[in-house]
């Protein structure tokens, strides 16, 4: 369960959003500039709200009234960025292993194989990120986030930087992820078709305000 009730002033732009989502995939829908990324950055802990609170599975990670702000690295919230952000000095295998190492988790070969198979990235393990296509990079970024064993996965327009053909290439992986990985997700997009396929609940954001909330039907 994800509970968000935050306010944030960013220059001229003011963001004030509150919602509680039980869904497996919460779709965060809105035009660019609606405040989607800022909201997701707050959930990740990369941005600190001016006022309000955020709780993941009942665990309060932000509460300005109580002076609580859990730093990003202690939140166990996975984040897949639009631009993948793979570490350029590490190969794919090392990128995938990064979260496990940083969290001091034991090696889990079975889990690693499952994720590598799920995303079809077994053939890329020795390559450097510079030698990957956009779609491959995004799949590796997904795997990297999953292998850090997050309790919530944030996906900020993971298909945004890809052309139509590449989008169709990645979408099935995301559907499989939703059905098999068993990790709640927040999926940010301005694409109605994408959200219809993936989301179970929708939060609609317009100019920094939540305008509607509910099932996928609110998209129509």
């Amino acid at each position: 369960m994800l509970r968000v009730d935050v306010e944030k002033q960013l220059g001229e732009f003011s963001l004030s959003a509150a919602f509680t989502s039980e869904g497996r995939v919460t779709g965060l829908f809105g035009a660019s500039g609606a405040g989607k990324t800022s909201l997701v950055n707050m959930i990740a802990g990369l941005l600190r709200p001016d006022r309000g609170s955020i709780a993941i599975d009942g665990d309060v990670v932000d509460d300005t009234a109580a002076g609580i702000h859990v730093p990003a690295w202690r939140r166990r919230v996975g984040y897949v960025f639009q631009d993948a952000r793979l570490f350029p000095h590490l190969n794919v295998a090392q990128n995938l292993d990064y979260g496990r190492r940083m969290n001091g988790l034991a090696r889990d070969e079975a889990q690693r194989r499952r994720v590598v198979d799920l995303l079809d990235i077994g053939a890329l393990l020795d390559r450097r990120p510079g030698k990957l296509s956009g779609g491959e990079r995004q799949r590796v970024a997904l795997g990297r986030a999953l292998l850090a064993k997050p309790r919530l996965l944030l996906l900020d327009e993971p298909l945004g930087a890809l052309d139509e053909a590449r989008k169709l290439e990645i979408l099935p992986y995301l559907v499989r992820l939703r059905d098999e990985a068993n990790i709640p997700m927040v999926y940010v997009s301005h694409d109605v078709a994408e959200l219809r396929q993936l989301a179970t609940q929708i939060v609609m954001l317009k100019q920094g305000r939540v305008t509607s909330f509910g099932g996928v039907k609110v998209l129509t």
Partner: protein
Amino acid sequence: MLDISPAEWTAILLSLRVAVIATLVATPFGIALAWLLARRDFWGKSALDALVHLPLVLPPVVTGYLLLLTFGRRGLVGGFLADHLGIVFAFRWTGAALACGVMSFPLLVRPMRLSIEAIDRRLEQAAETLGAAPWKVFFTVTLPLALPGVLAGMVLGFAKAIGEFGATITFVSNIPGETQTISSAIYSLIQTPDGDAAAARLVAISVVLALGALVASEWFARRATARLHGN
């Protein structure tokens, strides 16, 4: 051919030792300072930046004299170090290393700072979301990505240190076997009636060392670009 005399060898080896120690000791400070200047905003930042660059624009003899006043036996810091820790800089090779370290510091810091500034901070954010504490982010993402710049700075600093003359001779004088580096040896030789041939040999060695360092520094800079693009 180069027929290097024992006295010249002494000067060459001393120069190498002084420059290596100066570079190795200056490097951690250089990295810390480069990071501070690249990443932090604080009160007095421009003053600190100016202070670091001061040895580049001050007459070396002034820097040397200031070092003597500060780190000499009767200096504020030098007196303390000598009395309490037994560390003496005045007229010792360690003093030469200190002078070289100070003089080369601006050149050492600059490539490090530039390479840290060039790093995409969003990669550090990504590392954070994967569970890396800030100091782990620094050692697993920031430093490896800045490594070619760090090495370029070290090479450039080394090249400057090995050729330093003015501050060194002012601070620790020109004592063969203790503080006489290649540069001060050349200075002595060209003032001696038949020192020309020996001076020429040392000049040739200086030129080779300096050129080698420049080439190495350039090579590291190119590596840095490749590294940032993940090829």
